[in-house]
């Protein structure tokens, strides 16, 4: 999260992707940094997924990722 926060402060819109296990930890980290970076969560587990399963996760997250990177109307 430090990287995204740091890049955002330099003017680069960013989003971090994390597994759903990370929801609370990400909130805590954000609070500790005094920031609120965009985050998209994908379903845990990650480690033992097949390549095909990972691609399905990526496809499923894409719309949300794009939404967080672009300005709302």
């Amino acid at each position, binding site marked *: 999260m430090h990287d995204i926060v740091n890049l955002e402060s330099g003017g680069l819109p960013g989003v971090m*992707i994390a597994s759903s296990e990370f929801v609370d930890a990400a909130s805590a980290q954000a609070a500790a940094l005094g920031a609120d970076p965009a985050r998209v969560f994908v379903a*845990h587990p*990650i480690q033992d997924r097949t390549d095909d399963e990972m691609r399905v996760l990526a496809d499923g997250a894409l719309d949300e990722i794009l939404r967080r990177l*672009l300005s709302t109307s």
Partner: protein
Amino acid sequence: MSATSDGRVLLDPTGELSAPTRERAPRPASLDGRTVGLLDISKPRGNVFLDRLEAQLTDRGIAVRRFTKPTFSKPAPVDLRQEIGTQCDLVIEALAD
């Protein structure tokens, strides 16, 4: 006082018209003509995820650059951040697990 703050307080010097946390960078209206950086934090399987995002974005005509952190356990080195900052307009970082 929570576990994430240690009691240090500053008083807001602004007109308090917006939220006190660090604001996010302004977002563009579209990705047309913009380069998206994909930053792999080097946790397992993240590269497969990012490969797929790269393919999807490229199919949509969006320029993509790939970057990899040397290790997931530390923030990215300054050089890498500067590279991303100068070469890209937006960044996606994955995959924290």
